[in-house]
């Protein structure tokens, strides 16, 4: 990984995104190697603290990927996770971090290509943001 490649942490539901990432590998689909996958039993397990900790640990972007709406194996885990992601986006904006660095996606386990696309999309999106997440602002600003 080169320095210019943004680090992305992807919190993936075991039943969909994680399986889709696996499938992307099996299909030999190319996606940026800078995406670090963390498997969750369901995105409903996502604690908002995980997202902030990922940014604190140096992530430039965070993906949360859960089952298609209506497809969560625990009924509403993905809907709840989506609400938490929205809340954290609001918080990020208020502490000076572009909320675009965090995104929630829905996909199914059969969508290996979609996973690769999401990984590419997020990598591109973060590259297009001006600075790294923790580039200090000049003293006295922000």
């Amino acid at each position: 990984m080169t320095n210019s490649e943004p680090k992305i942490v992807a919190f993936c539901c075991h039943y969909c995104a994680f399986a889709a990432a696996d499938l992307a590998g099996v299909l030999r689909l190319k996606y940026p190697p800078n995406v670090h996958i963390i498997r969750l039993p369901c995105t409903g397990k996502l604690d908002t603290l995980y997202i902030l900790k990922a940014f604190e640990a140096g992530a430039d972007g965070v993906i949360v990927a859960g089952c298609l709406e209506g497809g969560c194996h625990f009924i509403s885990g993905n809907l709840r996770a989506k609400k938490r992601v929205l809340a954290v986006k609001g918080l990020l904006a208020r502490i000076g971090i572009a909320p675009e660095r965090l995104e929630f996606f829905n996909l199914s386990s059969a969508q290996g290509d979609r996973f690769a696309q999401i990984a590419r999309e997020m990598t591109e999106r973060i590259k297009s943001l001006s600075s790294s997440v923790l580039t200090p602002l000049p003293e006295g600003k922000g």
Partner: protein
Amino acid sequence: MIVADQKPIEEILQMLEPYRKVLFLGCQTCVAVCMAGGEKEVGLLAAAVRLARKHQGRPIEIVEGAVKRQCDDEFNEPWAKTIEQQEAVLSLACGVGVNKLSERFDVPILPALNTKFFGEVERQGVWAEVCAGCGNCILHLTGGICPIARCAKNLLNGPCGGVRADGTCEVAQNGSRPCAWVMIYERLGKLNQRQNLENIFGAKDWSSDRHGGPRKRIREDMLLEG
């Protein structure tokens, strides 16, 4: 429980502005249950503040902790040494905890929360004010529904003329809500106690409320000294 709200992050960052070494101390009782100042909120707020300060190029060192009840010295005591080593403490307890720590330590204690009211859990994520701590309870006469806390005008002989045809209150803060006196009327019906409504309450003696100044409760038989 005591219900509180976290202050806007901008305000918290502003309070913390002069400090570089701070303890974030939560409370594991009421404010933990109302998801404002427990261990979890300490973790979240600390992470957010660290990120914001790093982003500003003025990193901050935060110690994170939570005590069982910040309104009680003995639970704060194990933190005494840590507190004394800080430039400031951000307390995530209710205002009582902040006052308590301020009485004991010569370190600025900053409030992370806005303390609001005594409330019930209506459902997950929703808390409602149902008692105002007036100091002289009349719930046995009103079917267990408090007109002091739940009627916008604290009426003892309601409802007022503003009650709407659908039974909601004319004072609509946070959306519509039922008129306390309609609730009392219906509840007394269920309990076969509508005759209670025939007794007109006289003027309430508010000296037991906060209107008589800060209150104190003393149980002589429990005092250790004397």
